């Protein structure tokens, strides 16, 4: 039997206030792994000095990517995950810039 449901999709962007426990739940990373990502600058809480960190909803994407890289490459060390994550983001940004430059306005012709 096919069931039909209607749901709203929410943007994962620079808005929102996601707690550490929510980020753990959504990403599949442990709290210790999240803290290492913050220490390495791969994740940025809204206020590093706050007693209880909150994150933008975009951080769910970053944390889930970190978990995927950890699992896909069987990485044991959270510091290594942080480095791989930063490299992955750099590649993404470069590919985005390449797409922008290779077509349309602002393109190199």
């Amino acid at each position: 039997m096919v069931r039909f449901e209607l749901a709203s999709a929410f943007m994962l962007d620079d808005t929102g206030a996601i707690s550490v426990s929510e980020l753990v739940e959504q990403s599949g990373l442990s709290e210790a792994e999240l803290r290492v990502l913050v220490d390495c600058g791969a994740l940025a809480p809204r206020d590093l000095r706050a007693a209880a960190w909150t994150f933008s909803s975009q951080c769910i994407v970053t944390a889930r990517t970190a978990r995927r890289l950890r699992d896909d490459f069987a990485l044991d060390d959270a510091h290594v995950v942080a480095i791989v994550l930063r490299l992955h983001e750099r590649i993404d940004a470069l590919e985005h810039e390449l797409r922008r430059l290779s077509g349309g306005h602002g393109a190199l012709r």
Partner: protein
Amino acid sequence: MKYKDYYAALGVERTATADQIKAAYRKLARKYHPDVSKEKDAEEKFKEVAEAYETLKDPEKRAAYDQLGSHRPGDEFRPPPDWQQSFGNAQFSFDDLDLADLFANLAGRSGRGGQRGANAPFPGQDFEAAVRLSFEQAYGGTEIEFDMAVSEPDENGFLRRVPRKVKVRIPKGVTDGQKLRVPGKGGKGINGGRDGDLYLDIGVESHPLYRADGLDLYMELPLAPWEAVLGATVELPTPAGRISLKVPAGTQAGRKLRLAGRGLARPDGTAGHLYAVAQIVVPTVVDERQRALYGQLQDASTFNPRAHLT
């Protein structure tokens, strides 16, 4: 249910140690991971390898897999009669399940990373899907439908693959590469655990006129030479309808004329701008009178666009 030889997928013996299995997986992951591999069919190969490792890396799942016996890959098979009693309380209808589903559901009983009771709550699986939208759909928002097949208990408690159709409301103003979350529309939680989520990876088709950069839009503004020199009021299409734009006198090629707030707009009110980028376009066919007028302009002007090259 079709049998898959997970040991063969990783290229290890059935007696391999956990370290050997991990080393084999890491080597194959480096070779076939879609983010780094140029191999043909890398994505499919990686999926096979990852599925095998997901089962064999967990001692309980590995033991359960070993108890299924050895069969020829691709052959239909059924677990031994007492297999279900040995490995959890779930009742499986093996006809509808994939081997990966079987062990994914075992995770709910053995717990992730530790000891759990058979009735401990376990969160449902998250799903991810790529969505391709037209520019108009991204600009104005839209509703899209997904057909999914998830394994969940039926009314008798038997785990089955259940088709599910999910309709999702995409908010306006989504951009290419944006990720969206649809809470609770992933796999069902087990023993009262929260349902998983559906994550959408948005791709937006290019538009013949507009190029998006975040919430900002860019379009070409072709101008005749006299319009660029003297200024003009020109009519332009925008995603929200046609508008009149005043082009200042002395507009150079490449100048960006900003139409504030006419880019992509989000439900919370944030909006980007539309930039019309000036292009000077010369006529390729001129009649005698026009040619003569251009000649007079040439004689009357001391303008040298290449002064900086002398």
